[in-house]
């Protein structure tokens, strides 16, 4: 893994060669859950795949039509793809996802840990 202190890492985002766009994403923390959102315009629900492993979530989606950069028509893209690290206290067995208004919302409940204390 490259050490960014010695090797500056430039984040390009989109992958023109593979025709992949990097979608915008955001994560909001609530008391009992994390809510992760991806902005996926030009995508139909049936063309979205969500993968989860021990510490990361990956979104892959096929655009319903090829997207061309407005100023550089030769730059064409056909997919969205992004991987993000997951919070450590998320309950992976209870992850849910929904797709509305071209936004994918993934809800990750938090794991409740610790020993219960009895109140006097």
């Amino acid at each position: 893994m490259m050490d960014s202190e010695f090797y500056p890492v430039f984040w390009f985002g989109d992958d023109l060669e593979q025709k992949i766009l990097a979608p915008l994403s955001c994560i909001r923390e609530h008391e009992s859950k994390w809510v992760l959102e991806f902005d996926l315009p030009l995508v139909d629900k049936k063309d979205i795949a969500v993968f989860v492993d021990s510490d990361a979530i990956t979104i892959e989606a096929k655009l319903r039509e090829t997207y061309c950069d407005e100023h550089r028509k030769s730059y064409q893209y056909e997919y969205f793809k992004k991987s993000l690290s997951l919070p450590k206290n998320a309950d992976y067995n209870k992850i849910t996802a929904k797709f509305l208004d071209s936004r994918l919302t993934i809800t990750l409940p938090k794991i409740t840990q610790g020993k219960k204390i009895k109140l006097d």
Partner: protein
Amino acid sequence: MTAKKQNKILLLGFPGNGLIGTFTISYLISHLQMRLVGDISHPDLPPTVFVENGEILSPIRIYRKDNIYAIISDVPIFPEVAVEFVSSVAQFCKKNQIGKVIVPSGVDTQSTNSKDAKTYGLATHQSFEKIMYDKELPKFLAGSIIGTDATVITVFRNYGIPLLMLYTSCHPFFPDPQAAIFAITSLAKVINITVDTKDIQKRVDYLRIQHRNLMQETLDALQEKPAPSKVPPIYR
């Protein structure tokens, strides 16, 4: 205030929640076929120029059509320069006898349904309160306003220039041209012009993809993050 000053209006748009300001003012400039009359620069803003149809454009530009001025910024206004930037806009208003300023912006909403979008008005002067009442624009009643929006409100109040903030509910972290259509319609009602948003409606998905970088840069600026290691703009 002279009658001449009362007639002139400035529309101010800069990147913020949902890029509502950017989409709204950009549409108005194009729809009204406004003429480019100047630009604003600041040494502390990242050095950037855009090239469009072979023409070199500054990122912060001033347009005019009859008694309507528009200032649009294609780059986020960083907190460090916000006061100077807004003060220079206020001085521009004074110099050109502009009597009113309108700023479309976005406000975070818990609703994820775009059909629930609404525009609210926040006025600093009686004259705009009357317009809101006449146009049946609901008032922005309660909440916290931070960042460049707060600077705009504070500076224009200090300069005594009537200001109307038009807040449209939107997704704050993603470009929201769908919500901007509501903002455009509300702004058109306020300044008594007719608009046709069918073209934007058709291009909503493309606008969301096109403006990803600007949205990310805006969020970085609002969070006052240090500039990330990105490909230098010259290579984009």
